[in-house]
């Protein structure tokens, strides 16, 4: 096996290892920009280590879905990572129409997460679940607008094509549309990964949370795995966004892997900048925010269909 052939696998491993760094970078950037020192960038690694040794408390009312949440979240995050061309050229597993498989794998994890929240019978978690499905519905609509635009631009049905080699040529001919699609994807990334301005991962005031409130009753290794899985999801979406905005398929494998690491850090910084520069939106405004992301992708699609 040559390095070229192995590079998707190496990229996958790199992503799985570096994933907890991305939220750390975001938090550190935010702290730096707001004039504080903040926690170290590897904070999540030590949190995960700590949680792996803590005891677990299960709520008495809960059944299987609650215990399935970490399992499915982890599996779905890894399978989503298999489908994205993390190394900048091809994914570990690609097929015509894997765009759909990618989105629906994330939906599977969300379905189980929401059921796990409702499993506790807690009104806090019911509230979080309700918000999650509301915003996720709109995000899914907007995400598919963006994916459709990329598919139209590159005439590909697979993520490896959509965000891989053919895209670089299209940047020469259809840059304005692709800028809009990339911007739309960034807007959605913030919503999908529960970052500001949609959700605020640092607050624990229950009325203001979406993702955090749904995992309120999880503890110990269960909580750790859920946090790790959402870090992987953030990294995978960051890598996808980076490959759309910055196609690197023509580079050498080693250079491409370097750009992967750089992309993860860059998106982390970008997320931190957004968090430092604007407050979380009022919940009723969130649909408008997502609609803005959808409008960007939609305009891109219209330009490409012209």
């Amino acid at each position, binding site marked *: 096996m040559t390095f070229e052939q192995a590079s998707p696998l190496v990229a996958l491993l790199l992503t799985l290892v570096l994933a907890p760094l991305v939220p750390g970078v975001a938090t550190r950037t935010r702290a730096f920009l707001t004039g504080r020192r903040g926690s170290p960038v590897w904070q999540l690694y030590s949190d995960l280590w700590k949680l*792996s*040794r803590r*005891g677990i*408390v*299960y*709520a*008495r*009312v809960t*059944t299987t879905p609650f215990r399935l949440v*970490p*399992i499915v979240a*982890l599996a*779905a995050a*890894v*399978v989503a990572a298999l489908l994205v061309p993390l190394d900048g050229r091809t994914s570990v*597993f690609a*097929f*015509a*129409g*894997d*765009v*759909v*498989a990618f989105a*629906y794998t994330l*939906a*599977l994890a969300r*379905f189980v997460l929401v059921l796990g929240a*409702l*499993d*506790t*019978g*807690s*009104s806090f978690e*019911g*509230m979080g*679940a*309700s918000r999650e*499905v*509301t915003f*996720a*519905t709109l995000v*899914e609509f*907007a*995400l*598919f607008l963006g*994916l*459709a635009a990329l598919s*139209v631009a590159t*005439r590909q*049905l697979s993520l490896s094509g959509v965000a891989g080699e053919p895209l670089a040529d299209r940047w020469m001919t259809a840059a304005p549309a692709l800028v809009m699609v990339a911007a739309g994807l960034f807007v959605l990334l913030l919503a999908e990964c529960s970052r500001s301005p949609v959700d605020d991962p640092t607050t624990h005031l*229950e009325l203001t949370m979406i993702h955090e409130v749904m995992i*309120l*009753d999880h503890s110990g*290794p269960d909580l*750790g*795995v859920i946090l790790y899985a959402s870090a992987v999801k953030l990294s995978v979406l960051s890598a996808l966004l980076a490959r759309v905005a910055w196609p690197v398929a023509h580079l050498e494998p080693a250079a491409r892997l370097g750009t992967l690491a750089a992309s993860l850090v860059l998106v982390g910084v970008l997320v931190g900048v957004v968090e430092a520069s604007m407050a979380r939106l009022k*919940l009723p405004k969130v*649909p408008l925010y997502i609609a803005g992301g959808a409008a960007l992708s939609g305009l891109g*699609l219209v330009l490409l*269909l012209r």
Partner: protein
Amino acid sequence: MTPLWIGLGLFVLAAAAQVALRGRRAADSVFSILVLAGSALGIATAAGVLRAGVTLSTTIPSALPGGDWVIGVDSLSAVFLVVILGVGSLSAVYGIGYMRYDDETVAWPSHAFFALEVAALALVVCARSVVPFMGAWELMAIGSLLLILTEYRHAEARRAGFIYIVATHVGTLALFALFATLARGSGDWTFDALARGAELSGGALVAVLVLALVGFGVKAGLVPLHFWLPPAHAAAPSHVSALMSGVVIKIGIYGLLRVLWLIGTPPFWWGWTVLTIGALSAILGVLWALAQHDIKRLLAYHSVENIGIILMGIGLAGVASAHGRPVLAAIGYGAALLHTLNHALFKSLLFLCAGAVYRETGTRDLERLGGLARRMPVVWLLFAVGAAAIVGLPPLNGFVSEWLLYRGLLEAGQSAEAMRLAVLGVPALALVGGLALACFAKVAGVVFLGTARSSPAVEAREPNAWLRGPAIVIAVACAVIGVAPPLVIPIALRTAGYVESVALDVDAAAGVTHSAWQVARFALVLLFATGVAALVMRWLRARVVRRELDTWACAYTAVTPRMQYTASSFAAPLLDVFGAASGIRTHRGATVFHSEPFDLVLDRAVAPAWAMVQRVAVRLRGLQQGRLRTYLVYVVVTLTMLLAYLVVRGGTR
């Protein structure tokens, strides 16, 4: 053909057994065996037709107008036969156990009607000339009415039956006009003759396509012709709802495909129309479903949604074949056919589970349920499979057909012609998927998870084996198609080619079949990853102390089930986004939040129009006095007018 005839005979025999044994214990086993054997024979015939790609037919000479009666099975009929007989027989068996919960209603007539209805449905898709088709169509319509009226003591059932029978006959009227236009005065009304003579153009073609969309659209339940569907599904017993939703409405889809088979390539405007109506039906159907609190009514609106998804497939196929792209058209028709099968499976599964919940708790109101996962774990598992399948989540069957449709729409987006606009169906389908996920998170969460919201929900137990067995078989079918799409996708594509009347380019279609294998691999990868993750979690959990405590409630100690999120409050933010289109009235108070759904078409358009018709009709009542003298005057007046007409026209011909 012979096994199919024997099979249909067994269904009639099963009905006869119910009548002869009238409620004796033996009747139930005899009935079940006959129905299952009958459907096995019929499915064997259909499988033979699908494997060999042949058309079987029998001609019954007839001297009546309309020519000979031809009954036969081709690939298109065979696909629907599998759906009808498979879901029909399993629902019939379930019905036995379901009706035992009810001491008031006499069950045997309902079982007999059920078997006859399944036979009538099979006859509709096997008819290959107009007269037997319309005859079977009416048998099916009346059979459905009798089944909806099983619990006729309830005013709800009577009202639903009335709305249904009016709606279905509006459709039948359109079908008479449709076939009259197609036949254009020729005496031979066999489908083969109509297909040969069907070089329609201009007005006649427009009329045929619009009439087909109305006539079959009423049966299929596309928006805005869906209004009969939710009341009928809610009022009927659950196995009847399963049959209606899984099978009967699909006959509308069959009709549309049959008309397309007759006329060949439709004009491009028709494809766009169907694609648009499909997307609208899908979005509005699932949005309205989200607003419902009656579990069966909610599932009924999801049928509107799924019919919309199927129509999107047909619309895409129409557009593609108008642009001379047979392989893409095959993907569209194939996705429609496959989703027809898949929806029949997971929707009947969901209705069977909903029926078990209703029988065990006595309520269909979501707001009074909760915590059933602990009391009926098997039903919960089956419902979860159905819910994940209908949402389109991998690795279940709903994902396979939605993937095929997505793929077709994306491929259309890559063409250079106007067809590329079909790619706009992709975000529409994504919106539908998101809303469906929200809706089934609501149902599953509120009914099965959390704690019970009323005392009946506390007393529920696992239902008897009659109710579990058929549902388990259907759930297994959902899973098998989900992990092994190559079992069904080639058949769907071949049948699609048959509908288009083109022999598909083998190499081009092979690309689709190849990626079907990839979907199978994806499903296995997902299952494998989940298995590994489960092992990892098991290892992590085994290393630490585990305890069970109450749910965290912010240190509040007097928690009651009423504090849980309700179905109304769960759906409210998402419904708010869609404003007036979501069709709810909300009640807000200091301690209460409750939303009440209404049907925008039935309650805002059809019912007011119907009331107006009634007001006019009441004025005409003066004509009917019940006195013989008055009627004699009418007869004389009519005769005089006819004579006067003859005189004016100038005597005899």
